[in-house]
């Protein structure tokens, strides 16, 4: 699956109990509702490990953060794990200022995310 409309989902790869979602573009107020719907749909499959590739996400605002928080809570509810990787400095600073780096698992690479 590629380029899912306005949802910013570029690709989804499933491998056993692991699902990798590749995102692209600005996760802002304009795109967050569609991204939220796409990610909620994926959590319906209850992947044990939901990995989010943020390498092509240049910007995120508080609505994007809220989307990830909501998805994180869903994944937590079924005892899954949500892992981010490939964050640029800007996106990482958003997670730091909102103190979500304390809750989210953030890795540098896909390989680390697969083992986190």
């Amino acid at each position, binding site marked *: 699956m590629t380029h899912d409309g306005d949802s910013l989902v570029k690709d989804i790869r499933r491998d056993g109990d692991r699902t990798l979602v590749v995102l692209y573009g600005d996760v802002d*107020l*304009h795109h967050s509702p569609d991204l939220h719907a796409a990610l909620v749909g994926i959590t319906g499959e209850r992947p044990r490990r939901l990995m989010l590739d943020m390498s092509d996400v240049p910007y995120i605002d508080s*609505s994007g953060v809220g989307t990830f928080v909501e998805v994180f809570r869903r994944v937590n509810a079924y005892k899954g794990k949500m892992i981010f990787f490939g964050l640029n400095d800007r996106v990482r600073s958003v997670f730091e200022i909102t103190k979500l780096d304390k809750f989210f698992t953030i890795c540098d690479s896909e390989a680390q995310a697969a083992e986190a």
Partner: protein
Amino acid sequence: MIPNKDAVELNIKSHSSHLPVVRGAVERMADVEGFKEQDAHALAWAIDEALANVIKHGYEGRPDQPIHIRLEAVQSPGGRRGIAVAVRDRGRQVDPSTIRGRDLDEIRPGGLGVHIIRSVMDDVSYTCPDDGGMLLEMIKYVSKDDGDTTGDKAEAPAKGRSQSR
């Protein structure tokens, strides 16, 4: 708002598709004014959050309402360059004393925009103009050379800036 021939003024509708355009314009102005990339991003981020709040709360999602943005180069009493921002809308009025960020010790969506604005800007002031809507005035100065892009609350507001109403 006091007219200023040197200010950059943007008029947009309350549609979320306009936000990237404003972010781009703000970052470009910040670059022209000598902001480092991190500062320029922080400024654009805060303005983006302010506009998102206007769209979500002030206009309750209506996409065709007016928002006026004014950007003006200023200087702090200590000589640091900065940009003063005014965001004016015609939406629902809210008591400024109730506008504050939420506790971040719990993980839940919502309420982060004001926290972000207050974290990255040096001066933030909300007022309710007599003729309706809200006016948000804020200032971001270039950061000191320690790489800290969050607001420096110790610095006094720029001299000559219009007072909050």
